[in-house]
């Protein structure tokens, strides 16, 4: 097989970028390992999706369905479901699945495989390894797709969004969620999720707290938990026992980059370094969605996919022009600012960033050659929320540095 643009991953980033590449005149093949398109959205049956993209509130499956219908109608997109990419070569990928084992050649590749969840092994969760230690995503699949209850007495480790959503979901299903334990002093989840999923159900959230040890031979019987110091060392005299039959892990997402060899990865995002056109170090490979950096809202994933689909399509048609590079850097107040390089030019550009600390009534400023070229006022910003900053780069030729100016002073 052969195509202009090949997209790996049929979640929101993949579907959106495939549609956009096709609408911009390219032949597209979209490869998805599952039976249906939609990715993780299919198991996210709660609402809150689509407010930005469709201007209405949808559930995950509804959001996915809208995109799926558009993709299926598009005659320039060939969808290969039940198909797994096993290797990425040079302008080609190898796949296996229901259509057999074969290679697909492409002019441009969009990697949109999303994330996997951090596991018990990744965080060296100590104690025994019985049934009942599950990642939030697995719990979500069991409850929402398979219709099965995972347990009756739940402890959630980590305050990631899926963990918070599942705290509510499991409570509604009659389980008792005893606590959410967060090793950090702030939550990585969205504020609205803490309000709607924990506070509304009187589920306590303990900060600077983690599980010391899991107990139970065949099934989880409880956890020893307690507080940690600033280096995450256990403070032994705070050790307490909590009886439970299930430990749900919501301790972070890791971009699924293991198959993409030979491109450098930003240790802060675990995604590829990309330029303004979302090209990785290998210029024929583009990246978007959660595999690039973890987003809070699927709407933003879809928007990013749309943007990247255009770039990949132009590249496949040899119409993508990269200008002179402008380096992007930032102060220690940021975890990252993406893209990592921009091009000289007239257009407006939008950068996406995450803060490292909480800021209030502050300005985010872009500085080049000592001059502030743009600023954005932030009433309140927290590490848990991705933010964007749109500005004109007209006339800018040198490195742009992003900084935070606190207390309303520039």
């Amino acid at each position, binding site marked *: 097989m052969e195509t202009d643009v090949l997209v790996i991953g049929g979640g929101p980033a993949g579907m959106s970028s495939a549609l956009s590449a096709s609408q911009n005149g390219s032949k597209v093949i979209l490869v998805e390992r599952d039976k249906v398109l939609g990715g993780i959205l299919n198991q996210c049956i709660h609402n809150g999706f689509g407010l930005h993209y469709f201007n209405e509130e949808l559930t995950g499956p509804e959001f996915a369905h809208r995109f799926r219908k558009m993709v299926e109608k598009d005659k320039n997109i060939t969808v290969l479901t039940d198909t797994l990419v096993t290797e990425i070569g040079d302008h080609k990928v190898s796949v296996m699945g229901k259509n057999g084992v074969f290679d697909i050649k492409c002019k441009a590749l969009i990697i949109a495989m999303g994330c*996997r969840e951090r596991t018990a092994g990744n965080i060296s969760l*100590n*104690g025994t390894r019985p049934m009942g230690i599950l990642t939030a995503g697995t719990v979500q699949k069991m409850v929402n797709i398979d219709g099965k209850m995972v347990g009756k007495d739940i402890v959630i480790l980590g305050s990631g969004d899926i963990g918070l959503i599942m705290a509510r979901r499991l409570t509604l299903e009659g389980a008792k969620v005893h606590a959410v334990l967060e090793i950090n002093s702030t939550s990585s989840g969205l504020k609205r999720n803490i309000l709607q999923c924990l506070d509304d159900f009187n589920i306590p959230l303990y900060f600077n707290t983690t599980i010391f040890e899991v107990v139970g031979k065949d099934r989880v019987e409880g956890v020893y938990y307690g507080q940690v110091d600033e280096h995450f060392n256990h403070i032994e005299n705070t050790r307490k026992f909590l009886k439970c039959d299930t430990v749900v892990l919501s301790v972070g997402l890791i971009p699924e980059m293991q198959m993409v060899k030979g491109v450098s990865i930003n240790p802060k995002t675990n995604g590829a370094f990309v330029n303004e056109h979302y090209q990785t170090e290998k210029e024929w490979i583009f990246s978007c969605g959660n595999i690039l950096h973890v987003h809070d809202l699927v709407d933003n994933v879809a928007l990013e996919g749309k943007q990247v689909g255009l770039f990949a399509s132009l590249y496949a048609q040899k119409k993508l022009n990269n200008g002179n590079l402008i380096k992007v850097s930032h102060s220690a107040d940021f975890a990252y600012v993406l893209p990592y390089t921009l091009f000289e030019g007239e257009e407006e550009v939008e950068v996406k960033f995450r803060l490292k600390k909480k800021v209030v009534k502050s300005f985010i400023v872009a500085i080049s050659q000592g001059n502030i070229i743009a600023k954005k006022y932030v009433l309140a910003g927290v590490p848990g929320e991705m933010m964007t900053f749109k500005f004109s780069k007209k006339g800018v030729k040198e490195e742009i540095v992003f900084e935070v100016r606190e207390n309303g002073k520039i």
Partner: protein
Amino acid sequence: MKKTYDAVIIGGGVVGAAVFNKLVRIGKKIALIDSASDVATGASKANSGLIHAGYDPEPGTLKAKLNVEGAKLYPKICKRLSLPLKVCGALVVGDDKKKVQALYTRGIQNGVKELYILNRKELLKILPDLQEHITVGLYAKTSALISPYLLTVSLCEEAIINGGELFLEEDLESCQKEKDIFILKTKKGTFKTKNIINSAGYGYNDVAKILGTEEYPLEYRRGEYFVFSKDSTTKVPCTLFPLPTEKGKGVLITPTVDGNYLVGPTSEKSDYETITTENGLKEIKEKAGLILNKVDFKNAIRVFSGVRTICGKDFIVEKSKTNGIINLVGICSPGLSSAPAIANMVAKLLGFGTKELKDLKKIEPYKMLKEYPIKEQNEMIKKNKDYGEIVCKCEKITKGDIVAVLKRPIKIHSVDAIKRRTDAGMGICQGGFCFTKVVNIIAKTRKMKYEDVLKENRGSKVAVGDIREVNDGN
């Protein structure tokens, strides 16, 4: 009248499985019983997966004799069972030339072939990343890697297709002797047998109590490990040991036969408890750092622990005072390496000899779709659409692979049993994406309820029931 077995083996670890296999191949009527839901669920699933060359045990001990004998038997057994045995060698490294020399001499005394003493320059050729203080090493060329669980499973399967009988989830309740026949009662049934082999590992004394035979003071030593992903940058070409101490062979760094890397074990006195601890994992990090400059703990995908059951300094392989009972006690390391030799020894102790029947049946190799040539893969997918359905994306395992495993001689119904046989769930996502898929396939193929599928043993059901919507709908 129910049949009388020539022997009933209690305990389906690698030793019990090797004995089971051998006695069936001799032509005896044999049953193997275990309380777990699969074989190899104790120490046999949680160890370093090494066939040691045999330089380590003290000369003159059973450990030395059986290790060297057993290691020699493995190539033939693995060929017969189509099991990968990767002879990658082992390096014992340190800064004490005398100790290395002593180890070499010990190896020669034990009858180990192909041992070499290497200087730093020679060591660096094999491992450029060795710590500065390491000046000398012993290279044992015959040291090999094996999958300890696939070995145990394959030994049992081969026994079963040649007439052996395996009974899982059996709880032994009593033992009586009528004339020369033992009557073993479990919660589910009765077994009549002329002989009994107690290979219950950590449960040896519990079984000995029921049998009314010798009990021994047992000591448990927990060994904790890290598993690294196949992408790990700690790509050691062979097994790396520090110089051994009284506590054991120390924290090693080794590839596994599957292409992952293991770092461990610790050796902590404990109850029989397979836990990992903060201190244990810290100890591993420190000790591994004494051998290599950089150890890639960032790519750790799992931590686990196994427990060695130790009884004094040597293995006990003996006839009990009760005629017809064989005691296998304290088969800790190098138990995996010794298992085939232990099986031969048991056969001799029982007076069966070791001569095997001819024309025994061979098991189907454990071969996943991805291991076939591409042309055959395409034919398999065309013929059976299950092979076109991806289940485990990390290890590239399909539904067809899993269904095929469920149809093999041991009737398993746990996610971990599937994991051990196919690698589904062994990869970097650790089953995050495939756990529920595997549960669904087991339930459907076995025609059982979803929530009755196990993670590992009885008591580890994967779900507690339907969600409310399902109940309300009924």
